């Protein structure tokens, strides 16, 4: 890799041994993927996937301690993934004991994030790109992020450029101010390897469609035709919310870091089929294919007929419009069911900034009246508690399904279950 004078000086130790090691780490990372140079990060803010102070990860906090000690701090303010704990979310006494043990480094880590440069007390969310959070990169911006759902959204919907980095590497990029140029940072790396043709008779559910595509194309780039028929040709609130959930499913059920939607996402609008690489494979999706994918999901509950004890929605965190829409849907469904409150404890999760704005709307008291709990928590981190793992938890998030024991249902199925109850 060819380094600039400034980068070489950092590698040679001009700013100390720790900074030199940060640079060496990034250079080795770039060399592995044949990067020819480092490019400056151009986004205003960074984002780190590590938001949890988990006891078993002490070496991570020790490494960050070293960075702080040697003044190797982030050159840009950053947001972080959601916090792992929220007292508003139902949990048993024993679960709480385990949570306390599991996340015994949380205070220490949040203090480190303060010193390293977190944007604010409220900057803890996986959906940092939402306008209420304020970390929305511009098209063409170079990022050093790692959260998979945020990376795929930034690349695909915003047209920013970011690789699927790992936690710690994301922070080291922000500390150095450079990232190695390879993969999604190059024009060639943004070309599609797959053409996906949507031929469904009804609007495909975002979480299921994303899962089907992720499982098929794995880490490759899909160019998706026929979806604009269902979600339109404009990146409005509804389309962006759809793509947020769709992308998170592609990234977790496979490892997609970029997709193009014909007539909708910025690069697809500008370049159309020129984005499709030579010899791209074709995947046709109809309603039967989506049914097949849904029916293939394993459920690891001990008792498959167990009555759900908790429902999580909002992985990734919900948008303001989603919170409003779901408030109305829950109210209407409760009315039909003849119930006043949800029959299964249900948690909607969203970014602290979004929750704050939502609370200023008339919908907030209406949602509260349905019994639904609104939280900033990361449902994945709740489910990582071994006692949570044993609970029958349901969700409409395919990411949560993939990484935990939560059981997946479509939106309409979930709505019916939480408002009518399960016998």
């Amino acid at each position, binding site marked *: 890799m060819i380094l600039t004078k400034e980068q070489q000086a950092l590698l040679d130790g001009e700013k100390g041994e720790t900074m030199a*090691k940060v640079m*060496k*780490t990034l250079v*080795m*990372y770039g060399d*592995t*993927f044949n990067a020819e140079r480092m490019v400056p990060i151009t986004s205003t803010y960074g984002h780190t*996937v*590590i938001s949890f102070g*988990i*006891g*078993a*990860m*002490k*070496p*991570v906090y*020790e*490494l960050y301690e070293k960075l702080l000690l040697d003044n190797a701090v982030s050159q840009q303010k950053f947001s972080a993934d959601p916090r792992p704990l929220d007292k508003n979310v139902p949990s048993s006494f024993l679960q709480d004991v385990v949570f306390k043990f*599991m996340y015994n480094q949380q205070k220490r880590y949040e203090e480190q994030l303060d010193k390293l440069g977190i944007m604010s007390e409220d900057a803890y969310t996986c959906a940092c790109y939402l306008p209420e959070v304020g970390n929305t990169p511009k098209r063409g911006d170079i990022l050093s992020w*790692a*959260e*998979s759902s945020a*990376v795929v959204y930034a690349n695909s919907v915003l047209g920013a450029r970011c*690789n*699927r*980095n*790992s*936690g*710690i*590497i994301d922070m080291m990029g922000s500390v150095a101010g450079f990232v190695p140029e390879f*993969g999604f940072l190059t024009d060639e790396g943004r070309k599609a390897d797959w053409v996906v043709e949507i031929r469904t008779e009804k609007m495909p559910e975002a979480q299921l469609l994303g899962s089907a595509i992720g499982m098929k194309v794995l*880490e490759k780039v899909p160019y998706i035709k026929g979806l604009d028929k269902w979600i339109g040709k404009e990146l409005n609130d509804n389309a962006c919310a759809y793509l947020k959930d769709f992308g998170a499913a592609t990234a*977790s059920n496979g*490892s997609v870091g970029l997709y193009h939607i014909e007539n909708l996402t910025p690069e697809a609008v500008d370049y159309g089929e020129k984005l499709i690489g030579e010899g791209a494979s074709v995947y046709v999706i109809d309603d039967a294919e989506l049914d097949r994918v849904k029916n293939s999901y*394993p459920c*690891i509950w001990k008792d498959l007929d167990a009555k759900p004890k908790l429902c999580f929605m909002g992985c990734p965190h919900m948008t303001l419009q989603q919170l409003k829409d779901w408030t109305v849907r829950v109210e209407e469904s409760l009315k039909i069911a003849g119930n006043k409150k949800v029959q299964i404890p249900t948690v909607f999760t969203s970014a602290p900034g979004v929750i704050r704005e939502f609370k200023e709307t008339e919908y907030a008291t209406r949602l509260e009246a349905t019994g639904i709990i609104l939280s900033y928590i990361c449902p994945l981190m709740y489910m*990582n508690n*071994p006692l949570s793992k044993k609970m029958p938890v349901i969700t409409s998030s395919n990411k949560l399904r993939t*990484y935990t024991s939560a059981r997946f249902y479509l939106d309409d199925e979930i709505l019916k279950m939480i408002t009518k109850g399960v016998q």
Partner: protein
Amino acid sequence: MAKTFKGRIIAPGTAKAKALVSHNGFNTLASYQMALMFKDKQVKCGDQNNNDLYKKPMIDKALCLPETIGSTTGGMILYAACALGKQPACMLFSKPIDSLAASGAILAANWTEAKMPVVDSLGEDFLNFVKDDMTITVDTDGTVTVE
């Protein structure tokens, strides 16, 4: 009969260990999370979706795999495993390494004392040939001998 395979060195070093083979993608977070959290000395694999490895001890094994999959915390987990001395003896990839595993290997090489050579691009034949408990030797030039 011994067979040799040549790959690309991601993290240098030598190793000799018994093979532990995953034919499907290795989910780093799911595999290590519980073992690290509960200080399992054998570092048994916690990924219930991995039929090849689930509940098998991973420490000091030559971990043979196609690639890693799952959460982008993967590199951080691998780094932490190395820092805590819970790493495999080596990691041997049949495919070109993915960005998360590469991050973990590079972080471990630069920021820990752990010795965990990592070799990638060993080819599909490697993963078809190697079986659990075969003896693996990794040389400094990326040559992997299986017997």
